[in-house]
Every structure is written in C-alpha cells, then in structure tokens.
C-alpha cells in the first residue's frame, strides 16, 4: 500500500452561507492548499462565538468567531478573516487576539491588511500558504471559484423566487440540494459549469402552480446577516414555506461584481446624496427597486446594533410612505427560539395576502 501524506496546509475561513464551497475551490484548486469545510453551523457555533466575544460586538462577529474556533478544533492551521467597510475591518485583528489568548496556535491571515494592496502582495500571501504555488493555476482557480459563486447566486435566486409555488412538494429543494452538493465537491471549471447547467435546466422544467399575482417580498439589509441563512434563522426558507416569492438583490455577485456602490448612488439620489456606509446604498437601491416594481412588501434585515443599517431605516420609512409599501424591520442577535420571528413573518404574509384579496 502506498502511503500518501498530505503536506498541504489546512486553511479555514468563517462560514458564510454556501460561499464556503467557492472559497474551498479557490483554496484547493487555485492555491493548492487544503480547505477545512465545516458542516452547517449549529447553535453550538453561535454559543462558542458569543462566549468569547465582547458583549457589544454584533452577531456576525460572534458567528464568524464560532466558525473559526470550530475550524481550529477540526485541525485548521491557517485562519483567514476578511476585512470590510464597517467594524468588520477591525474584526480580524480582534479575533486574532482572542484566538491567541485562547491558546490556539495557528497562522492568522487578516485580509483587512491586504485590502487595496498590489497584486504582488496577494501573490506573496498565496505563496506563504503554499510555497509551491503555481500562479497560472491560482488565476484560473480564482476565476472559476468566482464563477461558482455567481452560479450559486443565480440558482439560489431562482429557488427562492419560485420554490413557494412548486407543483410537487419538495421538488425544488431536491434539485437545489443536489446542485449545492455538486458545487461542494467540484474539482474543475467544467464540473462547476455542468452542475450549474443541469440545475438550471431542471429547475426551469419543474412545473409550477404560480397564481396570477403571487405575494412578492423583497429582502434587503446588512451584508452578512441577510446572506447567511443560519444568522437570519432561515428567513427566506420560512417565507417560501408561507407561500411567497422571495427576492434578494444582495448577494456576492451583485454586491461585488455587478453593481458598484458608485454606480448605484446616482440612482438613489432622491433618497440619499452620499454613501452612508457599507451596504446601505444597496439596501436603499434594492428597496426602491422593489417598491417601483410593485412588490407587496419589503423585509429589512440587520444584526442588532448595526449602525449603518440603522441609518438606512429612516430612508426606508420614506420609501415606504412614498410608494405605499409596508416594511418589516428585523433585528438579529443570537436568539434561542424562532417563535417571535415566525409570528411576525406569518402576520406580515397574512397581511399582504389579505390586502391583495381585498384591493384587487
């Protein structure tokens, strides 16, 4: 028997929805290191995170710290934390300290230090993880990983838009799960593309029982909480189970590759003249779009104490008044039970549905 020892470094990144799969792809196929792919987050993750977090840190901090600790327990050697436009930029530094004080020995890469850096520095960073780095492979790997994220965004959007009306119960979910599974194990750009095409075709072929005027709900809000299902307690899944068509503009593709902040700002001139911080421009822009397209309702999602999104609330109230569209505001911390959320969502959906019946 041949004994193969895996010398690759074990890299981990905090969980964020299913984007883990794309990051795994970049790390494994591009950089040539090993990625610690964690199982879906549980209550244990958030408990771990909040136990070692400062009390006033927002929920995303706690979730990502919990993920990092779980990754360390799973054998990670290199932790990567991202930077951002709000407090997030400081999170890496703080988490590095917390993890060091907990006594874990690992390499901590804080991407905040590399933001805005030159290409050379990024390549040096990748070389640090894998000294035998092949730059050409890194470029294709990164490209295909990004492509995977885009495909996942597209299929996810399709899923939440239509799954509430599937003719056969569970048929949408089955295809969607299969697709995510394929992305999780994909090893080449071809596999990614094939998985995507198959899923898209399968979803398009599934019969729908779409009413003439379905209840359409747009979800807007803060970057992490809105995208990460575990953080928002499966908000979109709950909405499709109630029977709504759910739309969400905010995702990696739209936020980073398609709609730049500077491009969106002129569109929302009416409501905001300058950028109010991280994702507020996207929040306001998509809320305005949903209102203009005649959506039935908007749900605003943020983590508790998220200042930029708090600033966006008065603007959303203006939009709500001008376009006559109800907005439900949700604020997430680490909650134990779903009951409060379920009540609010059910009431919101019922209201939209009854309104439709009476006003049409």
């Amino acid at each position, binding site marked *: 028997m041949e004994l193969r020892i895996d010398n690759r470094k074990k890299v981990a990144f905090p969980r964020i929805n299913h984007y883990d799969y794309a990051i795994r792809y970049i790390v494994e196929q591009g950089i040539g290191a090993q990625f610690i792919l964690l199982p879906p987050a549980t*209550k244990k993750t958030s408990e771990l995170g909040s136990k070692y977090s400062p009390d006033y840190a927002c929920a995303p901090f706690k979730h990502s710290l919990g993920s990092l600790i779980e990754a360390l327990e799973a054998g990670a050697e290199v932790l990567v934390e991202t930077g951002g436009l709000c407090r997030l930029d400081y999170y890496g530094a703080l988490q590095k300290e917390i993890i060091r004080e907990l006594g874990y020995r690992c390499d901590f890469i804080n991407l905040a230090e590399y933001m805005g850096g030159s290409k050379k520095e990024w390549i040096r960073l990748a070389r640090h993880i894998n000294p035998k780095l092949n730059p050409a492979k890194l470029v294709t790997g990164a490209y295909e990983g990004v492509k995977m994220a885009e495909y996942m965004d597209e299929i996810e959007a399709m899923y939440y838009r239509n799954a509430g009306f599937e003719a056969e119960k569970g048929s949408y979910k089955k295809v969607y799960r299969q697709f995510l599974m394929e992305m999780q194990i994909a090893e080449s750009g071809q596999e990614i593309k094939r998985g995507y095409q198959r899923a898209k075709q399968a979803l398009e072929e599934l019969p729908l029982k779409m009413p003439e005027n379905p209840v359409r709900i747009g979800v807007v809000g803060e970057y992490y909480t809105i995208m990460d299902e575990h953080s928002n307690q499966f908000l979109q899944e709950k909405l499709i189970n109630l029977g709504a068509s759910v739309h969400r503009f905010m995702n990696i593709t739209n936020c980073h590759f398609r709609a730049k902040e500077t491009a969106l700002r002129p569109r929302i001139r009416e409501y905001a003249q300058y950028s109010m911080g991280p994702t507020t421009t996207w929040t306001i822009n998509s809320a305005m779009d949903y209102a203009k397209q005649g959506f039935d309702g908007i749900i605003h999602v943020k983590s508790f104490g998220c200042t930029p999104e708090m600033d966006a609330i008065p603007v959303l109230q203006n939009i709500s008044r001008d376009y006559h569209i109800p907005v439900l*505001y949700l604020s997430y911390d680490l909650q134990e039970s779903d009951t409060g959320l379920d009540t609010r969502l059910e009431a919101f959906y019922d209201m939209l549905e*009854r309104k439709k019946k009476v006003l049409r």
Partner: protein
Amino acid sequence: MKKAYLGIDIGSISTKGVIINEENEILAQCYLWTEGNPMNASKNVLHELKSQFDAANSREEYKIVASGTTGSARKLVGSMIGAQVVKNEITAHAVGTTTLHPDVRTILEIGGQDSKIICVENGVAVDYAMNTLCAAGTGAFLSSQAHRLGVEVEEFGEIALKAKKAAPIAARCTVFAESDLVHKLQVGCPKEEIIAGLCKAVAGNYLNNVAKGKKIVAPVVFQGGVSKNAGVVRMFEEELGMPVLVDENGHLMGAFGIAVLAKESQDERAFSFDVADMEFKTREVTCGKCANHCEIICVYRDGMLIDSWGNRCDNGAIKQQ
C-alpha cells in the same frame, strides 16, 4: 340548527374565548388569567363557555362547526382542541377589529408582553409593527410597578385620572423607568402623579418605539389589556390630539378575530366540549441528532401522541404512531 364558531386567544397573561354566530354576534364569552398554564386555562375557558351556552339553551339552537386559536400558546391549544385555524394574534386582531369597526384606520394594541400597531385602509390591514427585543411599556411592566407601589393594576387608570400632573418618567427602557420611579418615590412625589407618569410613559414609549414612522390616522381603536386603563387612554388622546376609541369587548378582540377566521375558512367539523375533560400532557424532548439540540414539544391526549413540533430539520421529525 344554526352554525356557531369558537375562538380562543391564549395570551401570556390572560386567556380569552368567544363563541359567535354567523352574524358575528357574540353568544358566549370568557376572560380569565392564564396563570402560566395555558392548557388548564383553555380548559377552564371551555367549561365557562359551555355553561354559558347551556344556560342560554343555545345548545339546541346552535352547533359549533369550526374553531380557531391565537395568541402565544396557539399551537399547543390548537392541537389540543383540534382547531381548524391556528393563526398569529396580529392577523386575528386586525380581522376582529375591522369586522366590528369597518371604518377604523389605526389599531393600537398593548398586551401583557407585546405591543403592536396596525394600520388599516379600506377595512384591510396594510402595515403593522410589533415591539422588538424588549417588553418596555407593556402590561407586564405596569403590573410589576403596581406591585411596587402597593396598588392593584386595575385601579391604575382611576388613580391616574385624579392626578393634576404627570411625573416625568423615562420610558425608553423598563430598567431606567424603574430607577426614575424609585427616585420620584424617594423625593416624596405623590403616588397618583407617579402613576399618571407611568401611564404617560407607556403611551409615550409606544408612540416613540412601536409606532415610529407610522402615520396614525383617526378613527383610532385602542385594545389589549392595557386599554382597560383609563389613564393610558387619556395620555394617548393627549399625545395624539384625537379621540381614542376603546371597545368594551376590546379584550376579546383576538378571540373574536380568530372565530371570524374560523368561519371564513369554511372548513367545518363538529366540535365537542368533551376535550375540556380529556387529559393532555406535553413533553419536551431534546433532539440529540445534531448540535442544534432542538427542543421538540410532544403533545399527548390520554397518553396518545397527537402532535409534535419544534424540530428544525427532518432528522428530528417524530413519527406518529
């Protein structure tokens, strides 16, 4: 035989029940404390409704064909009595109030642990908001302060109306309000002024928090347990500058609304008062199949499992025998 509909609203503090006929007239009604035991409370409600029903000899005339439950224990009691409709209290209140007051534009509601505002247009709810995260300025807050002051919460309104002015009390947060209140007591402020201040604080807190950004248009209906407090009603009228209507059946509105919804569902099944005498038990099971440790609630009727919920994934689904 005419048709009748049953609605039960099981709140954190009180449990309400009504029976209505097809013309939405209340045939029997009941209001009592939940006392932390929703199953017992709803059994008592059923007993009370049954005796009222018998006393009026309505049992020969009416037959209950549908039932509904609402309030925080709706699911439990719903599976207990086999209700056709199990709906949240916001929808129930909106439906109930718009049925009784078709011209209403704004519904203010302060209950034991939550408060909400519902905006109505053309007889249908178009927007709502509910308090988040904190129970400041709800019925529970008022009754705990009444306890501190040594008066019954039912007398609050009367005492507040006697006061010449209201003591300023911050209501942003229950804890801060309490320290303000203690301070006022220590400097010798008269009790009625403090009580008036509390009522003002509740109204102010509601308008600044729950109703923030919502346009309040007359006619305004105020309901929920706190609406029985005349002091809070007056403070609302002063703050809003418009009359605030309190329905004498305002406390029953949730139960009434869910009965109306049960009627609308047109899903008819004979209802029997026998459930009030059956034995129900609930058991909480912690699922150990993943680290989520969901608490699964199982409901048993006479030892038989009739319903279960609380699992987040299929792994925790309990198979019914």
